[in-house]
């Protein structure tokens, strides 16, 4: 583990990887021009000793994880181990209080210092475990607002409704959603699977740099799972990073992780390659509580 001090008060921790040498290049793709191997990509997210609580109950007790561009990380672990809390804290859910540690994003930006909407605009995306229904707001209007917020932050021009319609049509077919959904209210009356597809559609439209998928596979039938996985794989490239929170190896058959982490009692207790998920599938979490 190497610690590199960049500025007073900033410390970066890179788990098992040397510090990148191209901090100052302005755009991700420019960096990757000189840096083609996914595993040696720039650090996108660096979580160091993160602690968080809700209602004075400590949930995260020192989480460390480093996600580089081009990597897929899977986080597994028993119920109540803090996986979803980690995802919520990373996107700034107001119910959680960060009580210690730090999270840096991209080139050392303090993620915890940004408001939730700023994190989203800067390319941090959470696919919700339970997407919220919003009546009276059409999916098309909502998606266009969200995409234009992101484009505004990237300095790109906003889509007008007609332009957006074209973009939307293309992305919707890529996640297997019928165009009927564009005029329906956001998630309103959607089945569980449709809500999850809608989350993946948002991810495809927003093109985040860091996507966190919180149990996107739960509640999906096998066909929906394949469609969702195909959507994620289509989004995945050398410049973005993906964090998958899941209970099941099944999802990892379709989305290949580079790293698998096991969380328990608010900490990451084991990290390894894809084989770790297979091991879990076979033996469960027994090793966490050795008799």
């Amino acid at each position, binding site marked *: 583990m190497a610690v590199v001090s960049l500025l007073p008060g900033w410390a970066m921790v890179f788990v098992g990887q040397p510090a990148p040498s191209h901090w100052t290049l302005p755009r991700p793709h420019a960096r990757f021009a000189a840096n083609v191997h996914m595993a040696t990509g720039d650090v996108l997210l660096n979580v160091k000793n993160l602690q968080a609580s809700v209602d004075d109950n400590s949930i995260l007790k020192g989480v460390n994880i480093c996600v580089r561009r081009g990597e897929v990380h899977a986080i597994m672990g028993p119920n109540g181990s803090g996986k*979803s809390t980690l995802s919520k804290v990373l996107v700034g859910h107001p119910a959680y209080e960060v009580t210690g540690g730090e999270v840096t994003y991209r080139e050392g930006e303090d993620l915890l210092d940004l408001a939730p*909407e700023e994190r*989203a605009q800067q390319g941090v995306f959470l696919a919700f475990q339970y997407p*919220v229904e919003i009546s009276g*707001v059409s999916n098309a209007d909502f998606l266009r607002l969200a995409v234009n917020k992101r484009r505004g932050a990237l300095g790109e021009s906003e889509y007008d409704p007609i332009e957006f319609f074209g973009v939307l049509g293309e992305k919707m077919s890529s996640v297997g959603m019928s165009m009927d959904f564009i005029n329906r209210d956001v998630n309103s009356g959607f089945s569980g699977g449709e809500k999850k597809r809608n989350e993946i559609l948002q991810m495809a439209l927003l093109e985040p740099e860091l996507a966190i998928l919180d149990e996107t596979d739960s509640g999906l039938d096998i066909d929906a799972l394949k469609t969702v996985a195909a959507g994620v794989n289509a989004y995945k490239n050398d410049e973005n990073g993906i964090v998958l929170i899941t209970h099941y190896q099944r999802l990892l058959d379709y989305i290949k992780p580079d790293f698998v982490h096991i969380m328990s009692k608010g900490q990451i207790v084991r990290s390894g390659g894809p084989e770790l998920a297979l091991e879990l599938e076979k033996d469960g979490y027994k090793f966490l509580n050795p008799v």
Partner: protein
Amino acid sequence: MLRTCLLGSLALAHAFSFSSPRCGGGRHESVLLSLAPSPAPLAPTPPSDPWFSASLASRPPPRVASLAAAREGAASLLAAAARPRRKDEAWRRTDLSALFAAQLALPSGEVAAAALEEEMEVSAGARLVLVDGAVSEELTDLSALPEGVLVGSVGSMDAVASARVMKQLETIPEADADKRTELGAYTFAALNQASLADVACIYLPPDVEVSQPLFVFMLSSGSTSGLGASHPNLVVNLDRGSSLSLVQSYSASKAADSDYFTNALTRVTLGPDSRLRHSYLQEQGLGAFHIDSVFVDVQESARYESQMVSTGARISRLNVGVSLTGSGASCQVQGLALGAETQLVDFHTFIRHASPDCQSSQEQRNAVADRARVVFRGAVVVPRGADNTTANQLCRTLLLSDTSRADIAPTLEIATDDVKCTHGATIADLDDEMIFYLQARGLGRLEARSLLLEGWARTFMSQVPSEAARRRAAVKASLLAPETGERVVRLQQLTSI
């Protein structure tokens, strides 16, 4: 209290007297006039309440001569009437002292061209316009209505239609209602009829369906010498098997003139198997006082559906009384109250299952911000014998600031066994989980709240046949979004954790 007074009807060229037990024990909505000629007609006495005397002194002249008797009959009722006070149950939460402090005056009658601009196109061919309670022939356009449909001033109706309406004017709603449960319509209804300039009438003959929505615009103007007062009166009669979508809209006749008093009275009679979709839009100027009572008689197998929106006025009070009087009658009554700044938005409603085998559903939505206040008192009444009744009532309130206030009183009065009734009321702020979901997609907290409120208003307005009205309600709702001061996120309400 027993009162004897004179009410005449020129249509019948006859004078009647009637007595009105003002504090009767029963719950009756109107007093029926005795048809027996009075042996010794009494001259009307001036009101004992000085505000009523002054109000009568400034009432407009009748545009239609045949209304004179109805006016004088109602004026004589006012002689013994007391102004509503806070100790009256129906007015306990509605402080009218600012209205009673004002001197009523004749309104100017000026109309700005912009007043109807947004709805000119959608209402073309089916538009009735009243200015200060009198039908404006100039602004009215009824060219698209099917033959036999009568819409206009009572003065333009044929003898049969005119007589029907005059007959309806002979009853003042709630004259003998129980003080404990009344809507509080009586006094202002009497003032309305005592001050009639005109009566707007809508009549659909049997089995006529009007496909295009009919718009009735009630424009009110102010006055430079006091509080301009107008008293619009609308009578809607749908004969057997007919069907109509009606948009009844109240607003200022010109934007600069927002201080005035509109004291309206609306009667709706739905004949057997008829159907009315009633969009009611109260979008008065923000300095205005608005009081209206809407009484609906739903007869056998008829259906009444309403979306009643109250977003304007400094103080507004809407009384809605729906009586299901025939077997198989049904109603869906929906109200939306949006209050900002120091507005008071008040809905008092009752749905009375006067017949067995009727169904009602009521949904009230309130959103209140800043220092505004909303009042909802809604009764569902199922008297003895009204078996096989289904009645559902729900009142949902968004309390959007720490200084806003909601007074909610849903009541059920059930005097029979064979009923299925539900009622409920919720009060909350916007769901922080929804706000967070939108924030996680890049919207700021204020934008998220605005969008949620817009959507909330839009779902309510979906049945109102005017995109401009839907948009105005959404805009008004979004204005309620700003939060004053630092507010604490209510962790307990976060459901997605």
